[in-house]
């Protein structure tokens, strides 16, 4: 790769003032750092990455989604407090350090991750990300299909499985699940359909599911079969 991610970030900022690109470091041994784009300027940045003579990211290899659920963060904060204590039979006011546990909820978001390569310059990958405002109603991101045609089906897949709405996508429909389906299966809070079936070696969460099923529910099927006399 010709340039480091930091250098690419600088190049973007020089070309598009106010792009607001954020550097996301990867602390792992792969050190595959990425750039977080702002949804407002993402299309302009993507166009620059593709058209710039030196960068020339002409190939989009992969689009995927990430679900960041709301996170409850528990912090222990040391606070000073003045209390009244009896020392040697005399009441005194004493300053005391008390540990308090504070909880706050960090709101989650949905993220779309794009992996870019340059076939012409033989470098890559460059990882770019975009984040939605929250996980429920403000889930729109700009589509990069007008820049890289290869994003079309993969953005549809991300829409299907994560529920990110890509504005400007030419044909945003579900691609894997059926049209009538309402859920987004790759989200962390997805509830699996309860189509439990008898398993000879149930264990762990399968066992829990089996135990949650009253035997009557499963048995009633064969009873109905007998009643209706269907062959």
């Amino acid at each position, binding site marked *: 790769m010709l340039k480091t991610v930091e250098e690419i970030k600088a190049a973007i900022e020089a070309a598009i003032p106010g792009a607001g690109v954020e550097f996301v470091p990867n602390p792992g041994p792969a050190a595959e750092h990425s750039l977080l784009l702002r949804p407002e300027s993402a299309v302009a940045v993507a166009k620059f990455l593709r058209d710039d003579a030196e960068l020339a990211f002409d190939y989009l290899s992969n689009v995927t989604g990430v679900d960041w659920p709301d996170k409850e963060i528990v912090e222990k904060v040391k606070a000073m407090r003045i209390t009244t204590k009896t020392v040697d039979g005399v009441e005194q006011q004493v300053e005391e350090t008390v540990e308090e546990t504070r909880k706050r909820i960090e709101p989650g978001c949905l993220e779309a991750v794009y992996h870019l390569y340059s076939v012409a310059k033989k470098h890559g990958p460059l990882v770019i990300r975009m984040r939605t405002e929250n996980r429920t109603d403000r889930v729109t991101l700009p589509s990069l299909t007008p820049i890289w045609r290869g994003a079309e089906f993969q953005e549809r897949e991300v829409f299907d499985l994560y529920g990110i709405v890509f504005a400007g996508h030419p044909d945003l429909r579900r691609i*894997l*699940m*059926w*049209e*009538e*389906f*309402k*859920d987004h*299966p790759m989200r962390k809070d*997805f*509830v*699996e*359909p*309860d*189509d439990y*079936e*008898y398993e*000879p070696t149930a264990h762990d969460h*399968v066992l829990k599911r089996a135990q949650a099923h009253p*035997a009557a529910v*499963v*048995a009633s*099927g*064969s009873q*109905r*079969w*007998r009643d*209706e006399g*269907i*062959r």
Partner: protein
Amino acid sequence: MDEHLKIELGKQGIVVTTLQELYNWGRRNSIWPMQFGLACCAIEMIATTMARFDMARFGAEVFRPSPRQADLMIISGTVTKKMAPQVVRLYNQMAEPRYVIAMGACAISGGPFKQGYNVLKGIDRYIPVDVHIPGCPPRPEALLEAFMALQKKIDAQPLTGAGRPRFLDSEARGEFPIPVPGEHDLEPASNRGVWPVEIETGTKGPRD
């Protein structure tokens, strides 16, 4: 009829048979499968029809591209919930007599994808299956074995009485309800007419 007498008469040039035998002989030796595959098991099914395993020996070499001309549906692979309504619809379009072989772990139970949200946990939830073959995927020999099992099953079927085939039973239902894709799952999740299969041992089965 006594088997020895039959053989003796055969030596004299007299063929003695029953309508049932003749009928079943014809039925079992001309089972035309439907030409469709669902996943990797289909590759094994294709191999079974080729020269090495040669399914033609059993009168089943003609894979029909239309369900109207097919007798046998080989469910060869994973049935996703999106595909299941189409599979049931194709089965409904087949003319009697029709048979189903569920080939491989996925077709019989969902296989390695059993815990998935998008995979049907066995096609026998919606249509009656004659022969189940385990394996991932089953070898062509296993499919031939299933084929022979189906032939034996056809051969043993009486044309009248309780065990007669479905198409000779005017009471039997010919069409099976096609599941509708719902908001969270297929509706209904199984056809209560065929699943769960009643356990006939008299004692309590694992489901009860």
